[in-house]
């Protein structure tokens, strides 16, 4: 390949960094804006593949339960028995006495978990005075 004489004369080639820096700053702002600090603790479960109610919900669940495929119940980081679950549910009802009627615990149950286990959880929640639940679904699949 033959180079032109212009290079031989020593013309200074400059790389313009401005667009790259612009893009980097835009990406940085995007990540800072969309960063989530809390939701990290969500257990990875194969939730029922249903669209759900597709309604914005703002009220507090009071209690978030995870139900694994083998029937294990997890609240936070702790494996809980049905007896312990009853204590937690009663505490949630007592802690939200003014809104106990509208308190709806969120149950994140794996779609392959036995329904019998979910029935046991429902039974305990019912005995604790709760009148409703919310079942988490995965609409994105």
């Amino acid at each position, binding site marked *: 390949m033959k180079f032109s004489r212009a290079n031989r004369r020593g013309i200074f080639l400059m790389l313009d960094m401005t667009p790259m820096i612009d893009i980097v700053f835009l990406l940085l702002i995007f*990540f800072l804006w969309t960063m989530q600090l809390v939701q990290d603790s969500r257990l990875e479960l194969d939730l029922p593949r249903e669209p759900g109610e597709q309604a914005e919900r703002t009220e507090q669940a009071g209690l978030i339960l995870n139900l694994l495929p083998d029937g294990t119940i997890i609240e936070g980081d702790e494996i809980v028995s049905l007896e312990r679950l009853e204590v937690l549910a009663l505490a949630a009802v007592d802690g939200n006495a003014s809104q106990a009627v509208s308190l709806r615990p969120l149950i994140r149950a794996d779609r*392959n978990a036995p329904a019998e286990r979910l029935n046991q959880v429902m039974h305990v929640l019912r005995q604790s005075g709760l009148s409703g639940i919310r079942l988490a*679904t995965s609409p994105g699949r």
Partner: protein
Amino acid sequence: MRISARKNRRRNERLTLNMASMIDCTFLLLAYFLLTIVVLEPEDQLSSNIQPEQTTASGARQDFQPQVVDVELVDSLPGYRLGSRLFRDSESLRAALEQLRIDSGLFVRVHPGPTVGFAASAMQAGRDAGFTSVTYVPEGQ
């Protein structure tokens, strides 16, 4: 403090800001966010009531009986029973529910045997058919 403006003006010096360190920091932050990003799948939910404990004190019957869908194993396969009709998939169940009165609510009676996914499908079919009140009835307790 006296600033020698004359000196600056005379020499006609250009003040330059070194951007290299700032760009370094920006790249490091960008790399950090790219490495630590966690993509969470969106979740939705299905609300349902829990059927209260049966009481024998009241002999009063409601004027309208709710529609009842049984989620159970039939011939070792999960199915949805609506009256005498049996459905194997939630789509046909939804189509059948759409023909019914929706003002009296829907009871989803979940028997031991199927998985949570089938119970959720029945609840979703009820919602999609227009039932605003869906009640979960845990069986086998």
